[in-house]
């Protein structure tokens, strides 16, 4: 009887928890949630990118509900999240920079987001596809016939070092005790060199990297927006405004190809996309050359 009551209580508590969780969820219209790695095969120590893209129809400032997958033994080198919001919706691209530390096949579980589905009005979990990456071992060591000799020599060196340490260490300790302890000086922590302020060029470079990793509409519009800012106009301006704002020919070329890629027909997207990457790289490399040369 008491066992039954306890079970009922637990079930009620679980129901309350679920209801409270559902009440805290945002209502979202999720149009896409996908995940992809820029390489399917990597070697240990080699960096690769895992990009997660989510698109919702709502205009939101952030999507903190997005849960990225566990990266296991891999070393997380970087985690960039870019949000592009407009009245038409919001795109979030999160790029994880990872470095494998062990060989083997690794499957990332799909990133997920809990929200109330705007279509059904029910709490739902939206999940991305899992991604499999095969990590190969680094360059293998070739066994040679001299391996036993090397092992013997290593042993001799190690034994010699230990013997030397055993003799020298007591002498060193005695000598140090005879000296006066130096006054303690508090050294101020080294001042970190001031980071140079981010330039529009940095934003273009970042946006280009994200576009290369995940060539989706959101990353394309981000790259186009970064090029607009580099030209000296803000979001909401048009190509003509951007072209009028800068005399930079290389930037003009990148802006025009970005416009064609963003608004041209889908069957021309691959060609124009390659041209956009090329034109942007040309501008980035030209922008590195100091003016006046």
């Amino acid at each position, binding site marked *: 009887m008491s066992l039954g009551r306890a079970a009922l209580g637990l079930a009620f508590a679980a129901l309350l928890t679920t209801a409270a969780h559902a009440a805290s969820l945002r209502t979202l219209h999720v149009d896409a949630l996908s995940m992809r790695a820029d390489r399917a095969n990597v070697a240990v120590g080699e960096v690769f990118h895992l990009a997660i893209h989510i698109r919702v129809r709502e205009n939101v400032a952030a999507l903190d509900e997005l849960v990225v997958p566990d990266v296991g033994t891999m070393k997380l080198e970087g985690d960039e999240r870019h949000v592009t919001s*407009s*009245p*038409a919706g919001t795109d979030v691209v999160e790029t994880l920079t990872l470095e494998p530390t062990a060989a083997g096949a690794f499957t990332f579980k799909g990133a997920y987001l809990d929200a109330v589905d705007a279509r059904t009005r029910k709490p739902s979990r939206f999940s991305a596809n899992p991604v499999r990456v095969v990590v190969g071992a680094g360059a293998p060591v070739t066994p040679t016939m001299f391996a036993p000799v090397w092992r013997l020599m290593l042993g001799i060196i190690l034994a010699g070092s230990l013997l030397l340490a055993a003799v020298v260490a007591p002498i060193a300790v005695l000598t140090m005790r005879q000296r006066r302890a130096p006054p303690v000086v508090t050294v101020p922590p080294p001042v970190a060199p001031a980071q140079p302020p981010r330039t529009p060029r940095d934003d273009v470079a970042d946006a280009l990297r994200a576009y290369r990793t995940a060539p989706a509409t959101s990353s394309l*519009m981000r790259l186009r927006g970064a090029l607009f800012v580099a030209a000296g106009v803000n*979001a*909401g*301006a*048009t*190509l*003509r405004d951007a072209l009028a704002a800068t005399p930079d020919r290389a930037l003009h070329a990148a802006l025009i190809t970005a*416009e*064609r890629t*963003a*608004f*041209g*027909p889908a069957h021309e997207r691959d060609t124009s996309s390659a041209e956009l990457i090329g034109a942007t790289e040309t501008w980035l490399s030209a922008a590195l050359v100091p003016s006046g040369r």
Partner: protein
Amino acid sequence: MSKPRDVLDALHATIVGQDEVVEALVLAVIAGGHILLEGAPGVAKTLACRALAAAVGGVFRRVQFTPDLLPSDIVGTRIFDQKSGDFTTVLGPLFANVVLADEINRAPAKVQSALLEGMQERRVTIGPATHDLPAPFIVLATMNPYDTEGTYALPLAQLDRFLAKAVVAYPSLDEERTIVDRFGTGEPPLRANVATLDDVLRWQREAHDVFVDAKIRDYAVDLTRATRAADLVAHGASPRAALALVGLARARAYLEGRTFAVPDDVRDVAPAVLRHRISYDDRIAITGGDPEDVVRRIIASVPAP
């Protein structure tokens, strides 16, 4: 095979300045829509229409709208032929490829309705028979905003039938000097038959295939919807305005030689598409505000994609 830009050049050879008006005329031809020209007397509204009609060839008719005009004067009528003892149909001036409806607001509502019905349906009924209007069929209507005494203002629903409205402004100082030089010894000959009617029909077909991305469509819709929530506006634009924005954006992309529309196309045609589709509340008359400023503010308030 001629290009729309040939017609544009032909118009520029005749009309001094008025770049926006000249482009609006050519865009209306490409989009297959009708256009309303508003401006003071003597600013080359009629000349621009005649130059366009001459450039694209075809049949041109001009109707001077007056208060005593009857619908049958423009549509046509049936006359009893005493010799044959039967009725014969006499087609009115609406049966032309380019129709200039001069001072459209001087004719009564009945005549305006007959014209606008023909514009919308592209066919008219005379007696028991329905007659298709020729293709292409373009109505260029002019309106003088000043001498409003004895005029019949076009209601918003009828203005909506015009794809675009171009405002013909007074010329600049230099342009006015050029006008005196160019027209001082008589009107120069118009550049005739720069393109054929077949060319025009081909442009209309090809412009229809211009790609419009969903972001461009959304921009057009956002602009249209913004007119409904704007300050000083009593009634905003209808969904027909969004259709007109996309149609004219396609035409502009085609004129520029592109196979896809860009945000600049929509933003450039937006004033011509929206200005006659908005009715303003009384405050604009009280404060002496400029309706063109309201349109400009609406366009500026919507960020381009």
